[in-house]
């Protein structure tokens, strides 16, 4: 029983981070309609930034997050403005390959700049243990989880209540009509890409204290984030949150009770099954999925 609880807790803690990364991807995928294969690399950049700020200036991740997040927002805006926006009217396939190129570029730029070493942010506070009823977790993981949940909920309200959020949802649904009624589409694409990048960056900073960073550190997250987005439904922030937690749980449960070597297979299996049974995601998408190619 304790094993099950421990496994679930570990899975949910992990899932919180997946949710945060996925929410960012969901914004980009849902609003800008770009399959961003470089999403994991955005996480990786933030992890490096966290590491260097801690190593060089002893800036705790929980302080540097306030520097890194706006910077990464800006980076996302620049990416959209100078690399993705000129491609806006190309076919989705072309966009996929531009982001793939970007991913190769960023991974290897990191290799050129920092080498292949595995670096770890060793922030002592984050490594302390917190234990309730025999279930343990570190402060770092708990913080990451709580911040992730809080941010996803905040984003959920942003999308629901603010004009910016409404515009983004409208864009996700039908960008042509949004343009037609006078909404500056390109400007809001910059906002969406910036926000999406910032979310990925926050995730990168938060996992910094317990995950080593190296040039391929983010690669793993890209496909996982897509799985979460599809599970939760395109454009559905709450869905991404639940999808992330669900996937984290699936991963650890499969690891503990089937075989750790098959964790990822379980995740992909769930992905394909959900795609088949409910292509609109478990919780349904709020966007018209047909626009990104879903029947």
């Amino acid at each position, binding site marked *: 029983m304790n094993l099950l609880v421990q496994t679930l807790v570990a899975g949910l803690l992990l899932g919180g981070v997946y949710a945060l990364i996925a929410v960012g991807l969901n914004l980009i995928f849902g609003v800008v*309609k770009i*399959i961003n294969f470089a999403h994991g690399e955005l996480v990786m950049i933030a992890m490096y930034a966290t590491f260097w700020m801690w190593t060089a200036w002893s800036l705790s991740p929980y302080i540097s997050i306030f520097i890194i997040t706006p910077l990464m927002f800006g980076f996302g805006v620049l990416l959209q403005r100078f*690399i993705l926006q*000129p*491609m806006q*009217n*190309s*076919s*989705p*396939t*072309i966009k*996929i*390959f*531009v982001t*793939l*190129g*970007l*991913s*190769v*570029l*960023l*991974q*290897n*730029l990191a*290799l*050129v700049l920092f*080498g*292949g070493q595995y670096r770890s942010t060793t922030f002592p506070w984050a490594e302390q243990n917190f234990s309730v009823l025999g279930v343990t977790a570190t402060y770092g993981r708990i913080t990451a989880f709580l911040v992730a949940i809080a941010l996803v909920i905040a984003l959920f309200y942003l999308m629901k209540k603010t004009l910016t959020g409404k515009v983004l949802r409208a864009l996700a649904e*039908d*960008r*042509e009509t949004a343009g037609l009624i006078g909404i500056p589409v390109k400007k809001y694409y910059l906002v969406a890409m910036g926000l999406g990048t910032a979310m990925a960056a926050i995730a990168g900073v938060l996992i910094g204290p317990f995950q080593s960073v190296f*040039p391929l550190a983010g690669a793993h997250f890209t*496909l996982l984030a*897509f*799985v979460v987005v*599809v599970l939760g439904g395109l454009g559905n922030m709450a869905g991404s949150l639940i999808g992330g937690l669900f996937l984290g749980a699936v991963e650890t449960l499969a690891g503990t009770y089937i*075989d750790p*070597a*098959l964790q*990822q*297979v379980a995740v*992909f*299996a769930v*992905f*394909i099954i959900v*795609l*088949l049974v409910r*292509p609109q995601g478990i919780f349904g998408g709020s966007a018209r999925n047909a*626009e*990104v*190619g*879903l*029947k």
Partner: protein
Amino acid sequence: MKKKSLIWTLGLVAAAGLVPVFTSDQYILHVCVMILIYVGVTVAWNILAFGGILSLGHAAFFGIGSYTVAILYVKMDVNPWLGILAAMVTAALGSLLLAVPLLRLRGPFFALATLAFAESLRLIAIYAVPLTNGSVGITTPPTQGFALISFSSREPYYYIVLAMALIAIGISIWIYYSKMGYHLRASASDDEAVRALGVRTPRLKLAALVISAALTGAFGAFAAMYLFVIDPETNFSTPLYSIQPALNGIIGGMGTVAGPIVGAIVMTPLGEWLRTTFSGTTQGLNFVIYGVALIIIVRVMPGGIVSGMKKLYRRFRPENRSDGTAPDASGPIQPEQELANSEGGRS
């Protein structure tokens, strides 16, 4: 005119056949073999692209092909020529696992499903140690001979893969101009309209998938015999056999007949050249350049090299007229755009 182009083609095929006469440099022949393997896989990948279907999981079929021939040969002593045929069968059977996603998902979602499919197979190949030897992989025995597809020099390999590539190209051309290809291409731009005409597009798509997978499996099997070492990281590699063929196809011209051939012929030596030129300098620099080149190429020629050349050709024709009037102009090269883009609301 038709006769003339036939002579041209025959002449060039003959010239390709004479490459080993011009050079006996084993490395150059090796690069040519790799080019032809990629020509084959890309042409196979492109058969799905006729129907506007983007696969990012062809490594799955390639890997199935490689493992089929290797396991049959090394563990069961089946002749590798038979193994190649068996590989086509297993790859085709494997592709049936993607049948339902193919028919239910469109555009990027199918692409993601194929990606996850190939990754799953890679992990399973690592896991299934008794069958696959796991990550350690399978090495084919060094015994040589034509019957065993194993030679000390590159020339025989070159001729075998050249023949295979020509067959693949032939099949691809045949499909392109057949009724099936015509319907496939039409379904790429408007699936519903084609179905309204009574064409059973699901069946067509499935056929395209199976043919594409079988051809890819054959090249995977050949590559296994050619490269001796078969392991999950390589033979199920997403970058090498899922992304690269798709990339070749896109850069050459997705959904055209000549595009994938041109793409593979341009991209394979480019990667080779970048690696040899920059190896030993800063680590990773070649891939940085590759990444930048990729972004630029795709952006400058979104329709691929072949359509770029066609456009150039059209520009010099007297009856030309201005192009690209609509922001969502969908050339014949990107047939899937209508389905997948947010602007495709008209369908």
